């Protein structure tokens, strides 16, 4: 069945339908993730977005429920370069079934190269997957307003524990990927996941050893509550920020953030650690970055940059036990070179306790 991809500047492409037949619209993001389709689709950072996947023959290995990063995906729609036929042998669902079950519309056989070339020229765009490509459809997508409460939609409503016997870690859920909890479990951390709007006093009461501010969707300037909470907590607790959390820490210290032209969306993107010069690879999914301007005045050292474009990828406070990274060290999907940062966080907690 034919469907259309309509962008808000009038650019349209024709494709075939897959998944749910509903019409959907959201901000367009082009992801170069090569592996781990189910992890990409269930990443809450994509809440409200339409993901375009440039990898070929998606869905060849079916959808494996062991690899979900959230139980329910919240992306608005998916655009595929191409999809593979599914073989009914495995117990896993086919891609089509999965998308239908989760009410996600998809469109396949799209020339994603044409799409990428267009976006390179025209910048951030909104997209819709619809049944027509006429003026009406373009007007509709033009009128779409990007929501500002994306984090609220995906953050947990109630705090819940992930009990174990080691260090007590609070994770502020901004749209957290399950793999963050997996990494904490491997290290025997006694974790509690709290909603994005939990107050500083409530977190204090739980007496954490360290606090992680997780990844999540949307513009960090929209989550003013969390920024305030971080301002209050950062003098008393070791903090580790990931993705959106990294940007929140920057904003809580009067740094500036900016939007990148294309963003980094890949399963295996390089990161260079400045101190040692080592280059490693990990999963990136971000369109925002911290500006170089003002970073020093806020007493942060830049610990990691991206060797391809020089963007700041990691910062550490000079005298407070705070560090954060723009990328996803828990890497689901993607290269796991940087998962040791969780060990570093725990080491930092130990030395903070000793001091």
């Amino acid at each position: 069945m034919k469907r259309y991809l309509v962008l808000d500047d009038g650019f349209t492409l024709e494709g075939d339908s897959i998944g749910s037949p509903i019409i959907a619209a959201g901000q367009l993001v082009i992801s170069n993730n090569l592996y781990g389709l189910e992890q990409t689709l269930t990443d809450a950072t994509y809440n409200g977005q339409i993901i375009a996947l440039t990898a070929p023959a998606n869905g060849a290995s079916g959808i494996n429920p062991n690899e979900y990063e959230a139980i329910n995906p919240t992306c608005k729609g998916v655009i595929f370069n191409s999809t593979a036929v599914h073989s009914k042998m495995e117990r896993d669902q086919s891609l089509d079934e999965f998308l239908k079950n989760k009410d996600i519309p998809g469109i396949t056989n799209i020339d994603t190269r044409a799409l990428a070339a267009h976006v390179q020229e025209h910048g951030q765009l909104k997209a819709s997957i619809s049944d027509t490509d006429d003026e009406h459809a373009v007007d509709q997508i033009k009128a779409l307003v990007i929501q500002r409460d994306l984090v609220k939609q995906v953050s947990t409503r109630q705090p819940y524990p992930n009990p174990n016997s080691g260090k007590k870690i609070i994770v502020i859920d901004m749209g957290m990927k399950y793999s963050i909890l997996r990494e904490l479990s491997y290290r025997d951390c006694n974790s509690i996941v709290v909603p994005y709007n939990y107050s500083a006093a409530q977190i204090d009461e739980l007496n954490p050893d360290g606090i992680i501010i997780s990844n999540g969707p949307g513009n960090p300037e929209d989550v003013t509550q969390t920024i305030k909470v971080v301002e209050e907590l950062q003098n008393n607790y070791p903090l580790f920020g990931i993705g959106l959390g990294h940007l929140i820490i920057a904003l809580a210290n009067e740094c500036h953030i900016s939007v990148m032209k294309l963003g980094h969306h890949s399963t295996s993107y390089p990161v260079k650690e400045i101190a040692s010069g080592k280059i490693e690879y990990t999963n990136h999914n971000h369109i925002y970055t911290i500006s170089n301007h003002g970073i020093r005045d806020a007493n942060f050292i830049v610990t990691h940059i991206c060797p391809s474009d020089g963007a700041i990828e990691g910062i550490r406070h000079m005298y407070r036990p705070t560090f954060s990274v723009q990328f996803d060290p828990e890497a689901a999907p993607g290269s796991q070179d940087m998962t040791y940062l969780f060990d570093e966080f725990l080491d930092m907690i130990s030395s903070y306790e000793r001091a």
Partner: protein
Amino acid sequence: MAKEIIDGITMQRALTRITYEIIERNKGIDNLVLVGIKTRGVYIAHRIESRLKQLEGITVPVAELDITPFRDDNNDPNAIKNADLGIDITDKNVILVDDVLYTGRTIRAAMDAIIVSGRPKKISLAVLVDRGHRELPIRADFVGKNIPTSRKEKINVSMSEIDDEDKIEIE
């Protein structure tokens, strides 16, 4: 039989972490001087210095210290004790750097050498490995790894500058 307990990559990360902690505690790196003790402490000091240079863009002076004349088993009272650091350490934050901290006697000798050479503002200690069993009241401010050992065991630190590769072995 030597057994590797810390590999090269973990060793490098420990050095990077020490570097961040040094910046943290000193609230910046003004007035900092690194003094590396005898052989491997010097290489460690240089590695910390290169990381500081990458992060802060400033070159921190590194001095090399041979503590042999200051050892407490050196029985010649007339030996001229000259540390020959080559750097002025008066009013500076001196960080002594060594590979393994054990009884503490080496550090005491090092402090003697420092005091003879000038009047630093502060002396701190950074070590790659702390293996316990102190015989003097000395503690490290920055520790790479704490490795509990028995007195019979021996810790060997290999550094790629003079050994084949980076690693820490226990024997």
